[in-house]
């Protein structure tokens, strides 16, 4: 088990009702974190439509997570 801080943005934050939470998760990848927090972020979007960063660096869904990481979950972006 790993202690992971998860940060939510935009529609994910509104659904979760909080900016971030620290969780104990059985996760090996960013994708595992996305699935484990589905009740919080509330998204039925496939992860491929969303983006993820780990410790303020853009990452891939198969990027590994380690104890103490901060995982940032980004809903589908809409700049411009």
């Amino acid at each position, binding site marked *: 088990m790993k202690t992971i801080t998860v940060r939510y943005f*935009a529609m994910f934050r509104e659904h979760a009702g909080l900016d971030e939470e620290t969780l104990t998760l059985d996760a090996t990848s960013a994708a595992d974190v996305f699935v484990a927090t589905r009740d919080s972020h509330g998204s039925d979007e496939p992860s491929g439509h969303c983006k993820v960063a780990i410790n*303020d660096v*853009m990452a891939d869904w198969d990027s590994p997570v380690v104890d103490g990481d901060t995982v940032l979950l980004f809903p*589908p*972006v*809409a*700049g411009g």
Partner: protein
Amino acid sequence: MISITSDVIDPDLLRKTLFDPGAGAYTSFEGWIRNENEGHSVLRLEYEAYEPLALTEGRSILTEAQDKFPHLHAHCVHRIGLLEIGDCAVWVGVSSPHRDEAFLACRYIIDEIKVRLPIWKKEHYADGHSGWVNCERCASHA
């Protein structure tokens, strides 16, 4: 250079940052707030960004453009906060020796900005509802 701002974007001021004696071409793109989206009457839009990574990713996009098109100067500004109909939400400007690379680079930059920067917008509709825009679905025609 890229910046995220809650201030009004002034294209006339920004274009002057791209003046270069070696540049024979300047192109720009302005993204404006429009009053309709997918059949909904839109009153205003609310933008938010995760600035640390929006800036990092934006700098990468401008560097990529400059790698593709030598001697290119490129600048982008994106608004955040509450925007009204007609407001400029994003401005991209480039200058280069010739027009072909100026058009291509400007198009490259705005297309990448829309799908890569952690920026989100919520539309506020005339019927009182609001909703987040999902550009993974609308990127092809946005």
